[in-house]
């Protein structure tokens, strides 16, 4: 009985976590509405790793 209850709780928790991850954060304006974007894009070390890859193409200078 105990094992079955444990398994039920584990499955419920994982399902709830999955639902939360998939549902967009409700927009209340500003920072909260973009919390996921901000969390990633302010990780500068991570972002610079993409930046370096892009910069390899080099800058063009026009006339």
């Amino acid at each position, binding site marked *: 009985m105990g094992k079955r209850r444990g398994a039920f709780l584990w499955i419920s928790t994982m399902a709830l976590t999955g639902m939360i*991850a*998939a549902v*967009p*954060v409700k*927009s209340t*304006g*500003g*920072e*909260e*509405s*973009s*919390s*996921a*974007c*901000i*969390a*990633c*894009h*302010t*990780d*500068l070390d991570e*972002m*610079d790793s*993409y*930046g*370096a890859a*892009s*910069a390899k*193409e*080099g*800058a*063009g*200078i*026009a*006339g």
Partner: protein
Amino acid sequence: MSAPQVRGRDTYGVANDFVESVHGELGCITCHKGQNVADMDEAHKDMVKDPSEQDGGGVCKECHEEIASTYKDAMHYKLSGIMDIVGTITSPHKMEETLLPEAWALDCADCHASCGGCHVAWPKVAKGGLLDRHRFQKTPPMEKTCYACHGSRFAGEYMGKLGASADVHYEKGQMVCTDCHQANQLHNTQPEGVKRYYATETVRCEQCHPDAAKSGSSKIAMHNAHPDGTLACAVCHANEYFNCTDCHVSLDIKKPGEIKVIFPSNPLVTFKIGKNIDQSPGNPYQYNLVRHTPMKKDSLASLRYFQSVLKGAPGPEDLVASYNALPTWNSASVHSIQRRTKQNRSCNSCHGQRQLFLTTDDLKADDPTANEQVIFKTVPAEIKE
């Protein structure tokens, strides 16, 4: 001890202090759209990379309506100067009958500046990337923004990267582009009927150097010797500058679906005084420095072939049908100003020096006939002591 890490351009990283700024408080998706979720692909779905681009203001015009109301017609946004010239020399052909609209969209349009393309990111033509962690730059940094589009002419020579010298206003004056070309000029609508930039309001040399302009009562003998309206200041005070010649527009179609416009051309560093055929209140001089435009009669010839390949039928055989309508030597605002130059050392450093003047010696057989209006038939004679 390891060497300090040198960061290239920022492409995606956003500073925490930006998030707390007035623009940052709006939230990313207010401007860029997309989804506020952790999954990267999902988050970027329907994202707008440059939300300021559309109609000369995009989302910016919601708060900056006054600037956006003129910027949508400004030369920096519409690039109407280029379009006017191309339209003139390809007349009477209609653009839609040629490959020019495609070439325009593939390349020329990259130079058009959105609000964000100066105030937040590097211009598109320089491959984009954030200027400084998404912090908004009220005054765009010239070495990243102005230089990206004007690097092979004005900005390059101003900063000493091209030609014989940097400009004294840069070297000694520490001046940036916006000290002379202020926001109201850069954001403003192009005056109606103006082909290039001479009728836009810009600062003039005599506003900062009023004594220099008083021909007849100047303390500088050479200024007195040349009546008002004769010579543009740069004729005496600029150094050699960069030009392009023999330019050919071609397309690189090696990778399917990835067409690029390429411009093989020959560089030319020279100094040529010509007759000013663009006289206007902002450019009133009889003689000006002239720069070679990167154009020749067959510059666009390959577009006929590419039109065959890409559209199944060749374009007009004589695409540049009105090539003679415009000169390829044009009045130039050379930005390599110095007080002392080799042509202003003495009267005869210029007078009698045929190589400083645009003459028939500089014209080629297939040049447009309009060049005849710009050249000197005889150059000012040496002055006898």
